C-alpha cells in the first residue's frame, strides 16, 4: 500500500488520468547526466554596464541542450549576479557544494540545480517549484536581496516556473496527495456576534482599549500612516473584524497580538510586560465565551485546517511574455512586489489605506493607490515598444457598479496623459491605449457594450490586449467581449509612449479618477495574448488553492478513505469549498460494497456553519462502477463558508446525515410563530373613492355617460391627479383640484343637456328648473332644490318622500347643504371656529347684480351649484 498518489485537478472539473510526475523527473535526470560529459571548458567573464546596472556576461561553454538554454535564460541569468547567489553558489565559492549558478559552466550549474542536497531535497524541484530547496531556503530568510524573504522565494519560484513552465496549456495542476495527520474535530470557542457581546468581557472592553491606546498610530484607517490590518480602527466593529485573525481564543498565548510583542514589535513599555497585558486582556475576552462542543449525535469526519491541507500550487499560467507580475502574496506591509523575475522589479508603494486580501490580493479603498516608480515603470515602455504589442491581465473585484471613469490600472502622468489604462465606468470596462491613432489621453478608447454589462461586482479575469494587427481587444473571464475596436487602433504604433510615466493601481498617479475594489493579481505581457493563452490563465484561477482530505476511515472502518474538497481563501470573509469527492489513498482501491453518502455539511470550529451548506442534499452512493482512481465526485457544486477565526485558526470538519452505516437523522426545528405587535391607534373608518370610482359616481349622479367626449377628455387629463388609493390620510389638495375640474366638466355637460329640453321633460336631471329665467329671479328656495335635490338623491340617497330613510349618520344633512349653497343669510362654517363666516354660493355669485342679470349667469350659477355638490365629500367619501 502506498499513501501517495498524484491526482489531476483541472479547472474544467474534468477528471483526467493520473500523472506520475516522478517518471518525468527521473527521465530528465538521466538525459542530462549523459549529456554533461560533452561539456566544454570555462571561458572568461566580462562586465557590461546597462542603465547603470552592472551585468555579468556569460562566456563559458554553451548550453548543450535547449533545456539548459531555458535554464540559463530564466534561472541562471537571474540568480548568478554577485548580489544574489553568484558570489557563493559557484565553483570556488563559499557554497560551491551547491553550485547551481556556477559562473564557469552553465551546464554544470544545471546539473547541480536539478540534483539533491544531503537531505535528499531537490535544489530545484521542477515538478513542484515551490518545493525546491532553493525556494524554501530563501523563504527561511537565507540571504534575500529585498526586505521580504517571502518575496525572494516567490521570485525564485517564478524563475523556475519560467524555466520549466513552457506553454503547455493542456496540463492540469498536479497535486500530490498524502495522508494527513488524523485529528478529531475539537471543541472550540468562537467569536461572538458583535464587539459588544459578553460585557464586561466583550472585545470592546478587553482587547480593544489596548489596541486603540497603543496601535492606532499605524493600525487605524484614519491614521496619518495607515498600516493594514486596521484592528485599532476608531470604528470598533471594523476593528473587531480585523482583530479576529490575530486572536487565538482557544490558546490565547498563541495569539498574533502576543507573538508580535514578543518579537519586539512596537512595544509601548517593555515588551514582556506589554505582552502580559495583552495576554490578560485576551484571556479575559476569551474567558467570557462559552465553549462550543461537538454535538455527539453528529456523524463527523476528522478535522482539517488550512495549515494541514495540501497546497494545490503550481500550474501552468502562460507567462512567456510576462514582464511584470503582482500576486500580492505578501499579506502585510505597505508594498506589493513585482515577482515576475524580469528586472527591474516594479514594486508598488501603497498610498492611503490599501488593505491586504487574505488568499492573495489588495483591497483598494477610494482615495488609495499602489504605485511604482517612474524608473522601474520604464521597463514597460522599453519592453512593450520593442514588440509594439502588449496585454494587461488582472483578476479584479470592483467594489460596485456605480463608479465612473475610475482607473483600475494606469500607466500615465495623470488623467490627460497616459500610455494605457484599464478603467471602470458603471458596468463597463474601458481600455485606453495611446497609439499613433489616439491623442495623448489615449482617446478614443475602447469601452465594453452597455447592454452586455460585462463588468460585475464579483471576481473577474480581465485581459486587455493590443497589437498593431488586431488593435485593442477586451476579454472578460476568458471570453472576448466582441466589442469592436472603433478607435482605428489597427496598425497603430506605440512609438509615442512616454517612458517617464508611472504605473499605478487604483487611480491616476495624481490620485484622480479613484477606483474602489480588490485586485487579486495583475500582470503585464509584452505580447497580445491569444485566446488560448487567456483561457489557460483564466482557467487556472487566482489565489492559493488547497486540497483537504477529511478522513472518514473511522466511520466507514475502511482505512485511508477520505472525502476530499478543493478549498481556497475566497476573499477576506469566506472560504470556497468545491466539488467533494470520495477517495481512497490505497492503490487499486475499489469499494467492496456500496457506501451511501447523504447530507454533507461543513463544520467550522466545533459546529456546522449556519449558511452555505450546499452539499446538504447530497444523496448518492459510492460504488465500484462510478469510483475511479481519482475518486468519485459526490457533488459538482461549490460553496462559500464564512471565515470565523481566520485562516490560521479555523478548523473544519464534515458531518453526514448518512455515511455508510452511520446515520444522523436530522429533524428540522419547527418555526417560531412571531408574536404580533399590539394594536396601534384605530385605523380610519372611512376612505376616499379612487379615480375611476369618482368618475363613475359623477357620471351616475349627472346622467352623463363616462364616454361623453368632453368629460372623457377631462377625465383622461386629470385621471392620474385623482386619488389612486383609498387611504384618507393620503388625500391632498391637488386631488381636490382634479375632483373640481371633473365635477365642472360633468355639470357643464349636464346643464347644457338640460337647458335644451322642456322643463318637464322626463330626461331632465334638474326637472322643472327654468334656465330661461335670469340670475336675479332664477334662484328661490324651490328652484335651488331643483338643482340640489336630484344630485343628493343620487349621491346620498336623499329621500324627500320618506325622510326617515335618509342616512343621517353617514351622509350630510341636506338642509345644511342647501344653506351652504343658497341661503341668503351669512353662514357659519364651524360652531367652534371664529372668523369663519361666509356667504352662500348663490349670494356670492349674484353680487354682480344687476349688471349680470342674464340667463348666462343663471347657467353659470346652476353649474356652480351642481359642481359644488358633485365635487364634494358626497362623491369623495366612502
Amino acid at each position, binding site marked *: 500500500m502506498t499513501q501517495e498518489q498524484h491526482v489531476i485537478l483541472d479547472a474544467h472539473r474534468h477528471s483526467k488520468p493520473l500523472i506520475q510526475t516522478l517518471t518525468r523527473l527521473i527521465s530528465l535526470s538521466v538525459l542530462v547526466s549523459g549529456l554533461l560529459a560533452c561539456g566544454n571548458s570555462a571561458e572568461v567573464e566580462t562586465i557590461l554596464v546597462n542603465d547603470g546596472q552592472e551585468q555579468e556576461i556569460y562566456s563559458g561553454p554553451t548550453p548543450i541542450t535547449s533545456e539548459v538554454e531555458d535554464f540559463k535564460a530564466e534561472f541562471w541569468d537571474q540568480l548568478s549576479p554577485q548580489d544574489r547567489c553568484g558570489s557563493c553558489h559557484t565553483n570556488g565559492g563559499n557554497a560551491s557544494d551547491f553550485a547551481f549558478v556556477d559562473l564557469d559552466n552553465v551546464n554544470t550549474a544545471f546539473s547541480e540545480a536539478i540534483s539533491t542536497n544531503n537531505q535528499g531535497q531537490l535544489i530545484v524541484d521542477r515538478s513542484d517549484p515551490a518545493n525546491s530547496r532553493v525556494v524554501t531556503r530563501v523563504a527561511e530568510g537565507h540571504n534575500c536581496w529585498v526586505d521580504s524573504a517571502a518575496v525572494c522565494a516567490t521570485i525564485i519560484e517564478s524563475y523556475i516556473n519560467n524555466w520549466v513552465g513552457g506553454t503547455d496549456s493542456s496540463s492540469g495542476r498536479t497535486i500530490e496527495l498524502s495522508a494527513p495527520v488524523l485529528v478529531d474535530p475539537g471543541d472550540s470557542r468562537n467569536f461572538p456576534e458583535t464587539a459588544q457581546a459578553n460585557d464586561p468581557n466583550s472585545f470592546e472592553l478587553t482587547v480593544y482599549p489596548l489596541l486603540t491606546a497603543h496601535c492606532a498610530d499605524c493600525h487605524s484607517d484614519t491614521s496619518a500612516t495607515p498600516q493594514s490590518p486596521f484592528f485599532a480602527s476608531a470604528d470598533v466593529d471594523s476593528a473587531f473584524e480585523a482583530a479576529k485573525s490575530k486572536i487565538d481564543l482557544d490558546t490565547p498565548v498563541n495569539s498574533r497580538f502576543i507573538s508580535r510583542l514578543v518579537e519586539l514589535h512596537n512595544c509601548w513599555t517593555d515588551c514582556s510586560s506589554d505582552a502580559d497585558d495583552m495576554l490578560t486582556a485576551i484571556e479575559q475576552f476569551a474567558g467570557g465565551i462559552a465553549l462550543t462542543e461537538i454535538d455527539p449525535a453528529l456523524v463527523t469526519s476528522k478535522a482539517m485546517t488550512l495549515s494541514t491541507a495540501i497546497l494545490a500550487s503550481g500550474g501552468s499560467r502562460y507567462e512567456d511574455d510576462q514582464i511584470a507580475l503582482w500576486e500580492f502574496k505578501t499579506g502585510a506591509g505597505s508594498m506589493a512586489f513585482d515577482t515576475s523575475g524580469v528586472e527591474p522589479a516594479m514594486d508598488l508603494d501603497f498610498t492611503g489605506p490599501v488593505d491586504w486580501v487574505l488568499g492573495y490580493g489588495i483591497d483598494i479603498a477610494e482615495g488609495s493607490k499602489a504605485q511604482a516608480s517612474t524608473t522601474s515603470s520604464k521597463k514597460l515602455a522599453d519592453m512593450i515598444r520593442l514588440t509594439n504589442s502588449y496585454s494587461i491581465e488582472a483578476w479584479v473585484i470592483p467594489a460596485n457598479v456605480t463608479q465612473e471613469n475610475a482607473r483600475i490600472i494606469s500607466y500615465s502622468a495623470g488623467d490627460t496623459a497616459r500610455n494605457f489604462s484599464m478603467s471602470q465606468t458603471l458596468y463597463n470596462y474601458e481600455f485606453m491605449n495611446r497609439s499613433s491613432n489616439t491623442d495623448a489621453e489615449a482617446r478614443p478608447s475602447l469601452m465594453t457594450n452597455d447592454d452586455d454589462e460585462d463588468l460585475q461586482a464579483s471576481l473577474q479575469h480581465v485581459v486587455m490586449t493590443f497589437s498593431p494587427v488586431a488593435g485593442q481587444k477586451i476579454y472578460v473571464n476568458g471570453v472576448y467581449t466582441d466589442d469592436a475596436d472603433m478607435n482605428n487602433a489597427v496598425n497603430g504604433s506605440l512609438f509615442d509612449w512616454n517612458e517617464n510615466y508611472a504605473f499605478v493601481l487604483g487611480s491616476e498617479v495624481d490620485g484622480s479618477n479613484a477606483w474602489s475594489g480588490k485586485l487579486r493579481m495583475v500582470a503585464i505581457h509584452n505580447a497580445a495574448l491569444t485566446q488560448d493563452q487567456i483561457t489557460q490563465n483564466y482557467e487556472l484561477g487566482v489565489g492559493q488553492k488547497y486540497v483537504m482530505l477529511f478522513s472518514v476511515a473511522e466511520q466507514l472502518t475502511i482505512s485511508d478513505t477520505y472525502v476530499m474538497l478543493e478549498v481556497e481563501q475566497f476573499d477576506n470573509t469566506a472560504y470556497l469549498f468545491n466539488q467533494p469527492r470520495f477517495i481512497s489513498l490505497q492503490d487499486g482501491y475499489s469499494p467492496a460494497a456500496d457506501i451511501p453518502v447523504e447530507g454533507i455539511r461543513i463544520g467550522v470550529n466545533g459546529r456546522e456553519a449556519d449558511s452555505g451548506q450546499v452539499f446538504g442534499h447530497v444523496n448518492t452512493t459510492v460504488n465500484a462502477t462510478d469510483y475511479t482512481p481519482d475518486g468519485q465526485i459526490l457533488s459538482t457544486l461549490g460553496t462559500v463558508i464564512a471565515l470565523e477565526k481566520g485562516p490560521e485558526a479555523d478548523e473544519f470538519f464534515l458531518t453526514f446525515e448518512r455515511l455508510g452505516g452511520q446515520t444522523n437523522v436530522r429533524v428540522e426545528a419547527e418555526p417560531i410563530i412571531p408574536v404580533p405587535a399590539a394594536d396601534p391607534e384605530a385605523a380610519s373608518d372611512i376612505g376616499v373613492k379612487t379615480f375611476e370610482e369618482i368618475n363613475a*359616481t359623477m357620471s351616475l349622479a349627472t346622467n352623463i355617460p363616462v364616454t361623453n367626449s368632453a368629460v372623457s377628455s377631462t377625465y383622461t387629463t386629470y385621471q392620474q391627479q385623482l386619488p389612486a388609493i383609498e387611504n384618507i390620510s393620503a388625500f391632498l389638495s391637488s386631488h381636490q383640484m382634479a375632483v373640481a375640474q371633473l365635477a365642472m366638466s360633468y355639470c357643464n355637460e349636464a346643464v347644457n343637456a338640460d337647458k335644451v329640453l322642456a322643463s318637464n321633460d322626463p330626461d331632465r336631471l334638474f326637472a322643472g328648473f327654468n334656465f330661461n329665467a335670469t340670475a336675479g329671479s332664477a334662484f328661490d328656495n324651490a328652484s335651488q332644490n331643483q338643482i340640489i335635490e336630484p344630485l343628493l338623491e343620487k349621491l346620498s340617497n336623499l329621500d324627500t318622500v320618506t325622510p*326617515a330613510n335618509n342616512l*343621517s349618520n353617514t351622509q350630510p344633512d341636506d338642509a345644511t347643504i342647501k344653506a351652504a349653497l343658497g341661503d341668503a343669510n351669512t353662514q357659519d362654517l364651524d360652531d367652534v371656529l371664529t372668523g369663519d363666516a361666509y356667504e352662500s354660493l348663490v349670494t356670492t355669485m349674484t353680487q354682480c347684480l344687476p349688471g349680470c342679470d342674464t340667463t348666462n349667469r343663471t347657467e353659470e350659477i346652476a353649474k356652480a351649484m351642481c359642481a359644488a355638490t358633485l365635487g364634494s365629500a358626497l362623491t369623495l367619501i366612502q
Partner: protein
Amino acid sequence: MQSIRFMRQLIRLSLLARSFCLSLVIITAGTGSINAGTVEREQARRIHDRLTGLPPSNSVLDSMETLIISNNVEGAAHLAMENPAFYNITLKNYAAPWTNEEQSVFTPLNDYIATVIGIIRDDVDFREVLHGNIIYTGNASGIAAFSNNNNDHYEQLELLGPVLGDLSDNTILERKTQTEVNGLPDNATAGIMTTRAAAKAFFKDGTNRAMFRFTLMNHLCTDLEPLKDVSRVPDRVRQDVSRSPGGDSRIYIFSCVGCHAGMDGMAGAYAYYQYNNDTEALEYTPGLVTAKHLINANNFKHGYVTTDDSWVNYWRNGQNKLLNWSNQAMTGVQIDSRGHSSGSGAKSLGVELANSEAFGRCQVKKAFQAVCLHDPDNYAADRLAVDNITTSFMNDGYNMKNVFAKLADYCKEPQ
C-alpha cells in the same frame, strides 16, 4: 368624530379651492340630523359603496336593507356585486397593480386583469389564477382581435365603456382556454403567470426571477425580504449570483442566499419562458432552457446550472413553513422524504403556490384592504376575521365573491 374632523378639513380645502375655481363648496356630513335611517340602511349603503365605488339607487338600497334586517348581510353584498361597477371598476383596479413592476393602478385593461375579473365573476376556483388553462377575452364589435403581440384587444374593449364593454357581462367577457387563445400547450399554461401582460412585466429581460417575486408579492402577499432564510441548502442558487459581491462574501452568506436558496429553487419552473422584446410576445421553448437562465455564469462557476424546468420548494421547512404549504396530493407536485416539494414547469409551481394557506390568506387580505380600507395585519380583531374568512375561503371552493361578501359584512358597521 374622525369623519367629522375630516369633513372639516375638506371644508377648508374647499374654501381654498373656492378662491381659485368657481366657488366650489364642499358639503359637510353628519352635522345635523332630521330623520335617522335604520342602522341596516346605513350598513347597506356602506357595503354598496365599498364593493362598487358607487352610491346605490334607493331601490337597491331598500332591497339590501331588507336582506340585512333578515340577517342576510352576505346576500345584500352579493346584491351589490350585481352592479357592473364591481367588475368594471372595483375588480379591474383591484387587479391592475399586480400586472406591472411599478404596481401602478393606472394600467390599461389587459389579459391578466380580464382573467382575474372573469374568474371572480364566474365563481371559478380562484386557485386557477396561478395554474389554470384559462383566459378571458372580449367579444364586442369593433375591437381588435386578441393578439400575442400587443394589448390592443383589451385596450379597445376598455374604451368601449361600461355598457358596450361591460366586463360583468359573460357574453362580452368570455372564458376561454389559453391553448385556444395564445397557443400555449395545456401543460405550459399557468393562469395569469402565462398571460401576455405578466410576461411583458416579469419575463422581460432579467432572469425570470421577477415572475417569482411578483407572484409572491401579489398572490402570497409577501416580498422576498421577510422570507429570508440563510439556513436553507443553497444547491439551486444559480451561477449568476455573485458569492462575493464587491469582494465581501458576508453579503452573500448572510443576506443574498436567504432569498436565493428558496427562490432559485422555485424559479427554475420558468426556465422555458421568455418575453421577446422584438415580437412583444411570450415565448415558450419546451426542452430548451432560455439563455437568460445561464447568463453571467462566471460570477460563480461552481453554482447551479439550469438544465430543465424543474423546481423544488425548500421553504417547506424552516421559518417559511409558516406559509403553510399544502400536504394534500396535488397534480404535478411531489413531496420527498425531507418534506420538500418539487415538480416541473410553471403550472405545477402554480399549484404549489396556490394551495398554500398564504395564498388563501393573501386573497382575503387584499379583499379586506379593498372593502375595509385598511391593512388587517395591524389589528388583532382584523387578523382573527382574516383567519376565519381564509378558512372559509379555502373550504368553500376558493370563491372570491363570497370573500368580498363576508368582508363587507365584517366592515359594515360605521364607527
